[in-house]
């Protein structure tokens, strides 16, 4: 696959969309020589993704090299016999998602994305109370307060700061010209927030599993409630933390004169200051990346943020901004939703779409021995390799994708936006971008392979 039809001719592509994270930055310049790509303005993740040498890869069936046609036939044979095929991974573009949905529908399978745990941190909130959200361009131009919660966005979305937080210009004279950036969470790299519009950077280094407490306190202050002061003389305050102090028998009621105290190591005054900034902001944004919210029951953290946003909108404008969305997760969720009415974790076993976020979680199903074949699509990054399973597996993967075990059938596929054209949905679930064909290889698209498998059933 390394031998390229073009030989060593060099092509330069402008306005290239990057498929490697949910931001879908579309301003990349990529130069291709043969099958070697070079990105001139990408983040480390993009650069690594585009410039990763594509290892030679052949279709394989039970560890033996076969032709694409043979692999497709083998895959079709496996799928045909399955009582409950599981269609996972789903790291592909919209065309690929459409193809997965089509074959899953026909074969009475289950669909779920490899990263939907992260998505469900959001969905559990949307499907309970809804929310008020914003999008990247809106935040870039309008926000005068950006609070980043528990997410080292640097690592997930290398250019978030350059493209959203730091740009010099705003559309609106006098709006969002100066902004405060607050980092809520321990070990978050604050160095990304720089530039003429970044007026102030505040860091509240709270441990991840205690972020909900600090958010709770901010929410209470935004509502004008006093945070209950722990009893100053309680001997245990320093030892077991402020949240326990309230449990000490005999502690007094909170009063305005209560001594300064802290929550999860954050001084009360800092929390109060953040709440005040929230109330004074013209357009504030709470930003999180769902995959980074690894605290237990992280949807509660998301829910807490949406409560704060809702409350603030009584008087000013505030919104949430959810990032994440790597590996085509928003494309998978959106396509599944418009085609079935449900956002992933859908089973077609009984012919119609049935939605159950617990029962049709493919990760859980594999662990508990449900499903008798796994079709895994990983056409973008190399990190979402096949999970461990005893059932036969069919992998449509980018060459070099990490696999915990050797799949029964492996079919190398191209990456949308590199090896073939396509469309993907951005992390804000509003904007979608065209993916260019950079002609790196002749690898087929996952959509084409899936369609071929379906045709061979």
């Amino acid at each position, binding site marked *: 696959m390394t031998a390229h039809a073009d030989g060593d001719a060099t092509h330069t592509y402008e306005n290239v969309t990057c498929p490697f994270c949910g931001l879908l930055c579309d301003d990349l310049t990529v130069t291709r020589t043969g099958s070697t790509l070079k990105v001139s303005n990408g983040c480390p993740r993009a650069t690594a993704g585009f410039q990763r040498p594509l290892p030679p890869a052949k279709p394989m069936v039970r560890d033996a090299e076969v032709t694409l046609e043979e692999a497709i036939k083998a895959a079709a044979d496996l799928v045909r016999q399955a*009582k*409950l095929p599981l269609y996972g991974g789903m790291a592909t573009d919209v065309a690929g998602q459409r193809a997965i949905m089509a074959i899953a529908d026909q*074969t*009475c399978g289950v669909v779920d994305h490899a990263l939907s745990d992260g998505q469900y941190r959001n*969905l*559990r909130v949307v*499907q*309970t*109370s809804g929310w008020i959200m914003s999008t990247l361009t809106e935040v870039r131009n309008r926000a005068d307060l950006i609070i980043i919660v528990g997410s080292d966005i640097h690592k997930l979305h290398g250019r978030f700061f350059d493209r959203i937080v730091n740009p010099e210009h705003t559309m609106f004279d006098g709006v969002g010209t100066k902004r405060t950036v607050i980092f809520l969470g321990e070990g978050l790299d604050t160095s990304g927030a720089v530039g003429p519009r970044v007026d102030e950077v505040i860091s509240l280094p709270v441990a991840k599993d205690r972020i*909900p*407490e600090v*958010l*709770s*306190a901010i*929410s*209470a202050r935004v*509502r004008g*409630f*006093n*945070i*209950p002061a722990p009893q100053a003389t309680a001997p245990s305050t320093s030892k077991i933390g*402020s*949240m*326990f102090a*309230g*449990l000490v*028998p005999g*502690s007094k*009621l*909170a009063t305005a004169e209560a001594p300064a105290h802290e*929550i*999860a190591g954050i001084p009360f005054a800092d929390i109060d200051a953040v709440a005040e900034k929230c109330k004074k902001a013209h357009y504030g944004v709470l930003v999180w990346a769902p995959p980074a919210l690894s605290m*237990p*029951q992280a949807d*509660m953290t998301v*829910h*807490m943020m949406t*409560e704060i946003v809702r409350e603030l909108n009584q008087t000013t404008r505030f919104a949430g901004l959810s990032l994440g969305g790597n590996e085509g997760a928003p494309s998978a969720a959106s396509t599944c939703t418009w085609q079935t009415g449900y956002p992933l974790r859908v*089973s077609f*076993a*009984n012919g119609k779409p049935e*939605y*159950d*976020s*617990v*029962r049709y979680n493919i990760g859980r199903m594999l662990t508990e*021995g*449900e499903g*008798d074949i796994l079709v895994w699509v990983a056409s973008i990054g190399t990190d979402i390799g096949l999970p461990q399973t005893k059932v036969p597996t069919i992998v449509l993967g980018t060459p070099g994708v990490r696999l915990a075990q050797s799949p029964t059938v492996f079919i190398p596929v191209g990456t949308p936006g590199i090896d073939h054209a396509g469309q993907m949905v951005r992390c804000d679930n509003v904007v979608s971008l065209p993916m260019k064909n950079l002609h790196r290889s002749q690898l087929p698209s996952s959509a084409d392979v899936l369609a071929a498998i379906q045709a061979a059933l």
Partner: protein
Amino acid sequence: MSGLTFRLTSAPVERLDLSQLTPKHVASIPLAEVLKLNVGTTKSALKVGDVFAVSGKPGDVITIEGSTDKLDFIGAHLDEGTVIVEGDAGVGAGRAMRGGRVDIRGDAGALLGSAISGGEIFVKGSAGAQVGGLTPGDKFGMTGGLIVIDGHAGDRAGDRMRRGTIYIRGKCGSYAGSRMVGGTIWTELGFGADPGMLLRRGTLIGPSVERLPPTFADSGRHDLVVLRILSRYMQQKLGARAPKPLPGIVRKYAGDLATVGKGEILLTS
């Protein structure tokens, strides 16, 4: 009391959906039709007759024998009659019940009694996460009825619960009463960490809390008449199996101040 008994003939590999097996429904159709009811969750479309040996006469009770944690939605949408489960129950037992009684003699899986609005659920063993919680598309979690768990309950008990009572003789996991808008969760052995996050209204009662969220205000020790009412209610419901009445004095923590803050955590010791 008479009724059909469904004895599982072999442990299923796939999950089964038993939501169609309510006493009323199976009594309303011929046995031959009962045997044809779909319980499968794969395209092989397993039917009742494929996995259960059915005996007895239709009545107001059904008994599931040899039940395992793969049997989901036992007693779901029940409005009258009794479902007895000899063994464990899977996900969503008693889901959206409106009346009647589900009696699980083993453990229950996640989402026990999700969106239940009436009736009673008893679990001899322990229950999984989100007892009385909600699944997507529900307005609320539990909105009425009574759930009694002799063992422990998992995390997020009473998620978005609005009314009704969950009584746990054992321990209650973490994040009990999350996003709750009303109702009562009562544990005899205490709550895990962070109960009552985004608790709007409603009552959590137990002897202890592993960690209390900071947005609960210590309101001091009180003798609350409403607890006497609750004790009496449990006495009426459970008779000899009722918990011993709550102590006169409890310590009240009001919250969650991160939201409307009209709920409470009451510590009994």
